[in-house]
C-alpha cells in the first residue's frame, strides 16, 4: 500500500531511459522522478538531450530502452488517456498557420472534454491576443502565449514545456515564466520544463535536473543545491595550491591573486584538506545555480576528456 501511494505521488517517473539515433546515444540511462504539484526544470546546454527526453515523455519518440510512467500510468498503456491530462508545448510551438486565434481555440476545444471556456476567455484577455488575427500574423511572443493558453485551458494535471521561452525577448520571456508561476501557485499543477537559461530555471523551479550529453548529472531541489554547494574564495599570494584533488571540489577558477572553488558538501573536512594544501583564510560565498551548472558540466567534460 505504501509503495502504491509513493507511485501516485509522482507526476513523472523515468527509469533507465535511453534513446539512440543510429550509433549516437542521445539519452543515456536517465532516471528521474517529478513530484506532483512541483515545478521541475530540466537544465542543459543545446543538444544535451532535453528535447529528446521530453519527446519520449509525450510519445513522439520511442525509447530505445527504459520505462516511463506519467501520472502513475505506464505511457505505452493508454497514451490517449494520459494526453487528456497532460499538456505539451513544443519548442517550435506548432500551430496551424492558416487558422485565426479564435479558430485555434474552437478547434482545440473539440478535443478536450474538460475544456474551460471561462478560463480560455480570461487567458485570452490576460494575454491580449487578438481573436481575429491569423496565427501566421502573430509575433513570437503571441504565438508562445497562444500555445500556453491552449495548454492551460483544458485544466491539465501536468504541463510539459520544451524550451518555452526560446526565441523570446527578455520582457516576454519573464512574462511567460511569471504566467506559468501564477498558474502553478493558483492550482497546484505539475510543470516540467526544459531550458538552457539557468536564470529562468532558478527563478521558477522547485527542482532541477542538470543534463549533459544525454546523461543526468544531478537531480535535486533548488534549496538543497544551494545548501550543499558553496563557492570558496581565497588569496593565493603568488603560489597556487593544488586543490583540484580535494574531495568535493568540482571546479577551480584561477584569478591573478586568488582562486575560487566550487565545492559540494562544504564542511570541516574540506576546510582541513584545503588547509593541508596551504589554503589560508578561505571565504565562503553564496552560490548561484549558474555557478553549479557551469562547474558540473565543466567537471563532466574534463572527466570525459581524461583530465
Amino acid at each position: 500500500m505504501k509503495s502504491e501511494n509513493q507511485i501516485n505521488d509522482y507526476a513523472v517517473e523515468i527509469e533507465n531511459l535511453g534513446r539512440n539515433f543510429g550509433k549516437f546515444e542521445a539519452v543515456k540511462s536517465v532516471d528521474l522522478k517529478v513530484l506532483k504539484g512541483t515545478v521541475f526544470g530540466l537544465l542543459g546546454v543545446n543538444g544535451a538531450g532535453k528535447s529528446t527526453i521530453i519527446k519520449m515523455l509525450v510519445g513522439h519518440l520511442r525509447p530505445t530502452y527504459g520505462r516511463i510512467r506519467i501520472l502513475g500510468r505506464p505511457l505505452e498503456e493508454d497514451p490517449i488517456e494520459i494526453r487528456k491530462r497532460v499538456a505539451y508545448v513544443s519548442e517550435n510551438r506548432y500551430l496551424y498557420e492558416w487558422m485565426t486565434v479564435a479558430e485555434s481555440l474552437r478547434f482545440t476545444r473539440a478535443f478536450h472534454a474538460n475544456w474551460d471556456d471561462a478560463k480560455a476567455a480570461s487567458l485570452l484577455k490576460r494575454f491580449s491576443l487578438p481573436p481575429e488575427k491569423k496565427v501566421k500574423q502573430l509575433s513570437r511572443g503571441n504565438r508562445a502565449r497562444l500555445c500556453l493558453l491552449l495548454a492551460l485551458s483544458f485544466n491539465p494535471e501536468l504541463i510539459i514545456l520544451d524550451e518555452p521561452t526560446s526565441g523570446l525577448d527578455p520582457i516576454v520571456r519573464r512574462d511567460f515564466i511569471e504566467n506559468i508561476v501564477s498558474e502553478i501557485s493558483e492550482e497546484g499543477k505539475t510543470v516540467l520544463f526544459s531550458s538552457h537559461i539557468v536564470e529562468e530555471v532558478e527563478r521558477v523551479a522547485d527542482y532541477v535536473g542538470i543534463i549533459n550529453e544525454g546523461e543526468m548529472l544531478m537531480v535535486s531541489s533548488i534549496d538543497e543545491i544551494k545548501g550543499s554547494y558553496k563557492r570558496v574564495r581565497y588569496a593565493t599570494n603568488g603560489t597556487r595550491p593544488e586543490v583540484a584533488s580535494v574531495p568535493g571540489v568540482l571546479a577551480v577558477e584561477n584569478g591573478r591573486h586568488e582562486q575560487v572553488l566550487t565545492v559540494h558538501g562544504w564542511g570541516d573536512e574540506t576546510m582541513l584538506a584545503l588547509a593541508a594544501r596551504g589554503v589560508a583564510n578561505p571565504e565562503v560565498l553564496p552560490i548561484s545555480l549558474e555557478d553549479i551548472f557551469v562547474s558540473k558540466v565543466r567537471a563532466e567534460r574534463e572527466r570525459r576528456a581524461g583530465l
Partner: protein
Amino acid sequence: MTKAMIKAMLWKEWRETRWKWLAFAVAFHLPLFLAGLVITLQESVQFDLQAMSDPIAGQVLEVALVAQSAFLITAGLFLLAFFAVGSVGAELDNHSMFFIFERPVKRWNVLLFKYAVGAVQATTCVGLSLITTLSFVYAVMVAGSTHVTLEGSWSTFTNVVANGTRGTVWTMVIGLMVYSATFLFSVVFEKWWIAVIAGAISLVGMFYYFGGILFDLIISAATRDKGGDVNLDLYGRLDPVPILIMLMVSTGLYFASQYVFARKEMK
C-alpha cells in the same frame, strides 16, 4: 472519437483542401473549356445542330468522352497523384500535424480523416469530370449552333451519359487506387517533394507496365467499328471482378499507410 472531434477534423480537412480541390476540378476541365471556347468563338467551326443527324451529334459526344478518358488516365492521374501526395507529407514536413498529436486523439483516426476527405474529393473530381465533360460539350454544341433543336440530339445525349456514368465508376475506382498509392508515399516520405518524385516514378513505372494495355483501350475506344460508330465497349459494361480487385488494392494501400503512420516517430 466524439462528435465534436469528428466535426473539428472534417472542418480542418475541408478548410485546408477546398482551394486545392477547386484548382484540381478546374485543371481537369481546362482542356475541355479551351476546346469549348474554340468552338463557340470561331464561326468556321460552328455547326447547324438542326441539320445534324443523331449519329453525328452522338459522335461528337463520344469523342469528348474518349478524349476526357484519355486525359484522365494520363495527365489526370499525375494531377491526382500531386493532389494526394501533399495530404500527409506536407503536414509532416512543416510539422503542423504535431498540433494534432498533442491532442487526445488516436493516430489512426487522424489518418483516416485525411484519407477519407482526400479520397472523396479526388474520386468525385475524377469521376464527375466525365459527366460534366459531356454536359459541357453538349451545352457548347447548343450554344454554338445556329439553329437550336434539342429534340434530335437528346436521346443521343442520354445514351452517351449512360456510358459516361459507367465510365465514371471505372475512373473513380482507378482514381481511388492511384490516390491510395500516392497517399502511402505521402505517409512514408516526410519531405513532400520526395513523395512527389516517388509518386511520379511509380506512376511512370505503372504506365510502363500497364501503358500498353491502357493505350490499347483508348485506341480501341476511339476506333470506329464496322457499323461506323465509336467503339465504346469499355463504357458499356461494369465488370465486378477488376473493380473489386482494384478496391481491394486501394484498401490494402490504405492499411499499409496506417501501418507506416502508426510506427512513425515525430522527430
